[in-house]
């Protein structure tokens, strides 16, 4: 039982950081591939998590 529980714990812990990392990489590469819509995609995927994290941190302060 314990390894499964641990596994779940790790997934939970790393879900948000890994999602942010994936979005960041997508954005950094998108802006290289083209202008216009690609640049806008990059602003959202790289910049978005920063805003979301700030809001979450504000809400979850305790």
């Amino acid at each position: 039982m314990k390894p499964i529980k641990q596994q779940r714990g790790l997934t939970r812990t790393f879900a948000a950081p890994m999602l942010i990392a994936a979005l960041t990489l997508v954005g950094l590469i998108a802006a290289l591939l083209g202008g216009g819509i690609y640049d806008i995609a990059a602003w959202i995927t790289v910049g978005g998590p920063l805003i979301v994290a700030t809001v979450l941190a504000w809400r979850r302060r305790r």
Partner: protein
Amino acid sequence: MKQRTIRAWSAVHTWTSLVSTAFLLMLCLTGLPLIFHDEIDAALDTSVWAPPDPTAKQLNLDTLLDRALAGRDAKVPLFMSFDDDRPVINVTSGPRPDAPGRDMQIASYDATSGEAIPPKTGGAVMEFILQLHTDMFLGLPGMLFLGAMGLLMVIAIVSGLVLYAPFMRKLDFATVRHTRSTRIKWLDLHNLLGAVSLAWLTVVGITGIVHTLANPIIDTWKKTELADLTAGYEDQSVPNKMASLDSAVRQARQALPDMTLQFVAFPGGSFSTNQHYAVFFHGNTPVTRFMITPALINAETGKLDGVRPMPWYTKALSLSKPLHFGDYGGLPLKIIWLVLDLVTIIVLATGLYLWFARQRASTADIRVRRHVAPRKPAAG
């Protein structure tokens, strides 16, 4: 995770960070203005120059080169580059073909008349910052040293990621416990900001390390990719009488008609062989504009020896530039880059604070134990 494992990763994280922090802070601070170097250069530049007659025909490149070198002490041409947005050529020369950067002279000329045009002003500050950021004015050893600091940073990121698990096990993402001790508050902030900047900092770190290897990468390219062109000429130096530059560039243009002319590397310099004009072009799509391809023209016979697409490692070097400096993707991406740079500075500062706080706590702990607990006899 076992206590012992955590302690080992913690030691890795602490020491890789402590050794590199001062240099990483310097890199963050100098890197900050470099994100906006295009904007800053444009703002600082008060020189106004417009071509007297934008429709005028450009002069022959041989004539332009002769005029450019006429008034100089350093007579050996090293590079000629071409501005994209105006009929201007920039000529770099040195006392010898293999002259180091500090001995080089550069100036810009109107390609329609050969007249020197006023140099852009205000470039010295950014030049200084870039040099500090690149090698701390120490040349190749400085570059490689900063590369090693980058490598330590990547190890610190990996170990930080491992440590994130035990520290955040019981906490939701982005929890900052600010009513507890200062140490807990800064620890939570350090973890949050580290998690947020993880991928970005890894990309900037790895591409930075690639940059520090630029010289060995270019040397390898010359030794392997251009080896067959120099076979049989190894002992020869730069030819005394050189074929027409203008004709060389014309042939190169014919060989690569769909690309944009960027610069010519003269024989004997770092980007060519002793026997060739290397005429470099870049692509016109967003990705290929970072990629350069040379056409090599024999400087003695004036004949095209071939077009050499760059190998993967020099392409990686080219792509590392925007990904490291963040000077792409429009102003919003640059601003995001600035925010992430500031986030990194906070991660470094809080990390340093946490180390100090722990040092203080453990010395206080020892003092308390000495006073409270009776001293045990030392184990033999």
